[in-house]
């Protein structure tokens, strides 16, 4: 929330003065307003109109109480037509700091200053430009002396100038940004100020070729023709099963562009990145599994809704591969985690059997380090539960991973000799050597090798057996 907004100017004679402020009296006292100012202007004025070296940049400062932050962008326009050859002004806003000195335990504690930076910059740039072009601000001074002088003057609209006073502009900006998060204000015939508060997100991690993006929303419903063409092609291929490399191939887009497009989606938190599902890989529980067991927020019912398969499908794991994008994969993963809690369970469940909550918990908890999905499956089959007939294993695993119940145990290959070389800094890519060697430092998962080298797990293992380097015992496989 903007607590106050002001326009400050440096006057050659009087020094730094507040020319306009909203609400009245927020920065310097005015006649008729009893409310105390937000902070002591005298303490902060050297940061509102600072020394020249600090002009023309975004400056913030906190007040001594630790309650407010003053965000400003002091602008200095050098020009011989001004007194002292310079016109200095600052449009600043005051927001709550949300630091401990301020409101303790108040929910407003986490106030994000970042969105306001653009507002302040935009105000500075627009008015600087208007001043440069038409002397908008310097002329205004004639009608608007500093606050302490203007008190005796009643009406402030003067006939010949048909434009808004800055004070009312500031008020509109403050109100609109506080209430709607955006504003569109015609300043004069030629200029309009358009501003919007955008949330700031941290830079998303890189998208790798072996990641599997899962949509969190139905892209088909929100996409429109103005979207980036590459993005439009990429989103049609996101099905919750295909890895990035496959998506790039299927969308006929280069891998780099695909990664860029997906990273963009990741920035807006519209996709999740998972790993490639194989029956030969391991998954193991994480502490989050306790929420699953306790059925927090109806998680198990949500899971049942998502993973139980119809009796018609029995025998083979239903694959979303190739079922297109509009119904199969993309809706499921997207809808399952996000909306499932609102509709607890759907007993009709595409005509299949709903597996009991207990059984789902049992299935989820029996994943274990050192046990592949295949072995896990076999264990349950032997125990008399035909998992494949009732449950889509891939979806179960994905559900577990998305909800933080399971993690993927990755497989790494490590060559001791190569490690020793790395440790001494002698590692040189072996000319004409094995293309696999660079993967052997323990930082590259099998998923990466599989996608980058286009090999299967078994093929890689075979190649490793015949790895030329140092003979027996050099290569080990670590699961993590």
């Amino acid at each position, binding site marked *: 929330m903007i607590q106050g907004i002001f326009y400050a100017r440096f006057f050659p004679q009087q020094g730094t003065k507040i020319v306009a402020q909203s609400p009245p009296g927020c920065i310097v006292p005015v006649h008729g307003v009893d409310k105390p100012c937000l902070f002591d202007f005298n303490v902060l004025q050297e940061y509102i109109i600072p020394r020249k070296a600090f002009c023309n940049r975004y400056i913030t400062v*906190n007040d001594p109480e630790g309650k407010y932050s003053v965000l400003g962008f002091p602008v200095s326009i050098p020009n011989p037509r001004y007194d002292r050859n310079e016109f200095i002004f600052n449009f600043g806003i005051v927001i709550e700091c949300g*630091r401990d000195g301020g409101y303790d335990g108040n929910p407003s504690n986490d106030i994000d200053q970042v969105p306001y930076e653009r507002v302040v910059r935009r105000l500075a740039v627009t008015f600087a430009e208007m001043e440069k072009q038409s002397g908008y601000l310097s002329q205004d001074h004639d009608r608007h002396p500093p606050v302490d002088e203007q008190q005796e003057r009643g009406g402030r609209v003067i006939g010949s100038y048909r434009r808004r006073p800055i004070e009312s502009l500031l008020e509109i900006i403050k109100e609109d940004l506080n209430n709607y998060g955006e504003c569109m204000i015609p300043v004069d015939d030629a200029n309009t100020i358009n501003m919007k508060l955008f949330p700031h997100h941290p830079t998303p991690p890189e998208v790798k070729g072996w990641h599997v993006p899962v949509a969190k929303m139905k892209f088909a419903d929100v996409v429109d023709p103005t979207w980036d063409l590459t993005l439009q092609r990429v989103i049609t291929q996101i099905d919750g099963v295909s890895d990035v490399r496959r998506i790039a191939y299927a969308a006929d887009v280069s891998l780099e562009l695909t990664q860029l497009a997906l990273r963009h989606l990741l920035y807006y938190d519209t996709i999740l990145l998972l790993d490639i599902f194989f029956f030969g890989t391991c998954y193991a529980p994480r*502490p989050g599994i306790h929420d699953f067991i306790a059925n927090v927020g109806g998680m198990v019912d949500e899971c049942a809704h998502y993973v139980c398969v119809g009796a018609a499908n029995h025998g083979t794991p239903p694959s979303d591969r190739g079922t297109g994008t509009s119904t199969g994969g993309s809706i499921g993963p997207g809808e399952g985690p996000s909306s499932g809690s609102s509709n607890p369970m759907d007993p009709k469940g595409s005509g299949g059997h709903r597996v009991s909550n207990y059984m789902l918990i049992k299935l989820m908890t029996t994943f274990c380090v050192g046990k592949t999905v295949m072995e896990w499956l076999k264990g349950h089959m032997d125990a008399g539960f035909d998992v494949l007939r009732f449950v889509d294993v891939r979806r179960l695993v994905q559900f577990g991973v998305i909800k933080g119940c399971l993690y993927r*145990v990755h497989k790494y290959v490590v060559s001791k000799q190569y490690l*020793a070389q790395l440790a001494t800094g002698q590692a040189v890519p072996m000319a004409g050597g094995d293309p696999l060697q660079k993967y052997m430092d*323990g930082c590259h998962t099998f998923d990466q090798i599989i996608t980058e080298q286009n090999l299967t797990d078994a093929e890689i293992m075979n190649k490793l057996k015949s790895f030329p380097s140092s003979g027996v015992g050099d290569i080990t496989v670590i699961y993590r």
Partner: protein
Amino acid sequence: MALPVLPSPSNFLGVALVINRSRDGPRFVFHYPQLVPAPGLSGTRPECGKDADDDNDLLLTRPSRLDGFETSAPSAPHPANLAQWNHDDHLVTESGTQIVPWEHVAGFPTKDLENILTPARAYHKRLFQVSLDPLYCVSYPIYVPENGVWRKKKRQQRKDAGAAARRDDEGVAPGDTDSANRSGEKGVSEDQSEGRDPAKGTAKTADEAEDKKSSMTMFNLVFFLKPKKHEVKDLVDVMFVHIIKKINKAYKYCQQRSDFVWKESKKILALKDKGREDKRNMSALWEDILQNSSLAQSMQDIYDAVSQNKIAALQLETIEGMVTHSVQIPVPFHISDIPQDLEGDECGLWMTTANSLISDEAVEEPSYLDKNFGLLLLADEKKISAELQGDPDDTTVSMIEFVRHCKPTLSFYQVGQQSSNVLTPLQVRKYAQHFIYWRRAIAIPPLHARDMYIVNPNCDMRKLPQATARWARQFPLLPALPNFLAELSVSPRPYKLHCPSKAHRPVYMAMLAWLMRGGWVTQLCTFAYVVVWPEIIYEVEYALEAEDIARTKRSQSGANAAPSSSTGAAALGDVAVAGFGMSSSFLSLTADDEPSDVASSVTTLRDLSLSHSQSLAPHQSSDPDLTPPSPRRTLSDPQSHITAHINTSLAMTPATTSQQPTAAEKAAEKARLERIADKAARELAERATAHARKAVPEQTAHPSVNAAKHLVGTSPHIILDAKKATGKESLYLSVIEKRLRGRSAALASSATARISRDRNVSNNSIHGNRGGAPVGVAKQGRDAHTTAKDDGRVADAWGKFSKYFNGQSALERIALQEDMKRKDVWNLLTAMSEYLLCVRHW
């Protein structure tokens, strides 16, 4: 505990000391490192790249800023010259102005910075934070007291003031202050003793007059930060609370005692002025200053340590002796779940959930920590002892003793015992805390060869090459690190199985400790919940229903016997009585239950009966006089007199009510009540027949595989926290206990049990995987020999252990907590495994 945003050379650019003087104005004294890069100048504004696409602000702003820069400082060097400048030599512009390398810091002239960084007195001992584009200047300005005298006046007072200042200084630390003072890093306490030195005191009175009014009015140690946009607040908070505030306070302490900051500043400024005249190279001058001024030296220490997230040890050579003080940003040494960003700061941290419980449990039971945790020293025992001896004080001897006794395989409790009680539990706890806070050790659940350890999913594989080399030096004759990790990671099994022979055990434990230290492995723990099988559920439901019917029957017959129209009321009153009857009958089921359990089941049943009475209430709602007894009943002593009490009250009730109505009304009322009674009787009879038709609960040896027809519809129930179980869940628990008690009998009677058990064990046992198979097999072998005595032990343990069946307490730690043998605990747990749902993670 999440990892805080930590300073690094990329977001912590430097420190600078700025002072203000009463007549001469502000002065920029010193900064470190020598070259604080200008965050905006190079045009690499990483965060802005993203904004730029739809933001024309930048395009518009940049030229204007350049304008400003050029015109604002007429003496500014030519940009081209500046670009090539190495920031070490002095430049001379065409106009003859000398540009001094140290007079530009972070892209700003120090002349301007010194003004903006000396805020008004309003900021005295408060956070001062000003940002200049991406550069954040954060500090905690210290002003001279209003009277203009830094130094406290009288000697006696000074001692107090010193203590007060110290308290003040330390008061901000969140409770680790004790440890901060006690150790080698005990800063202020040490020189306080020196302050008492009488010889120095006399000399001081002389300069007191001369130094009365210091010309320095404030000093301000400013930290230049360049946080990423989303981490501004976090980084500033962390730095301010743990570093900035504490260091400025330490300086203030020295300034108050010996005018330290002012004297050192004068020294540095003199050196700089001379360097300016001689046009000395900045690097040479800086070296000089660092050697000559312990203040400058301390700033270097601060920057070098804090930007690497290490412990910064200040050593300030005041005229009254060395003042030492240590500061750091405390970082967690473990996390409880895999971090989002696998390559981020948290990578490499040890993962465990053991510590997430501390807060709850420690309150309830202070010894919880002692028994569950041991200390793993992060450095060599000898090295730590040497460190301690290097800076001796009265706790050094016992601390060294503590270090000597600490083994990662021992809990604090055991350490206390082993040291033949030289160390009190309190000492053990305090020292451990101290070592942990100062990053010399971490607390871990004691290592044990029977426990399972897996490769930490969060281990930092990037460190593998170096770690492998170090491992090879440390354990030359043993398998290489990659091989050992591979072995641990293939399939989890008790650690001792990795050890070739008993003789290797000690060295293998040392290896394990090494791996723990580096965050390479973590313990795989087992967490359990109680599963109630349909058979048990059915049994309890059946019994409850039978009780209910019997009770209603009894109450109806009682009501018939009652003289007047108060059938409903009698029934109502009897509910409670019947409740007790029922509870006693249940008590007979669980004869040797612990008293607390009895109490809980009684309350449970009372709850049940209350709810019943409420459900009955609508039937009599037409009769207002009948409701009063219920509050009275709840007030009265529940145990014995209740029946009589209610009966008397009931006897009175009709007497009062029957006085008003006429005979006709009475007849009508009676008929109505009779109708109700009839209906109730009919319903009861129906229920009774329905109940009789139900299958009688049959106790099979293995309820988990009982597939009887009447159980098909029921799915097993999971008790989330057996300790807090109430209502039906507590009934389930006592029924299970009873089953465990009679287990061997049941086993003997059922010939088919063995087969079903096979399947069951592999399904359900704690060791439900390949690695655990041997235990399961061993268990079956023993089945034949289970005796009633064993069953008794299992049943007893069930009551004792059930508090751990909450999915939060690792079963591996029961032995430590209960002071039992690990093997016994496992045997008991295995015997209970049919009723446990287990899940394993760190």
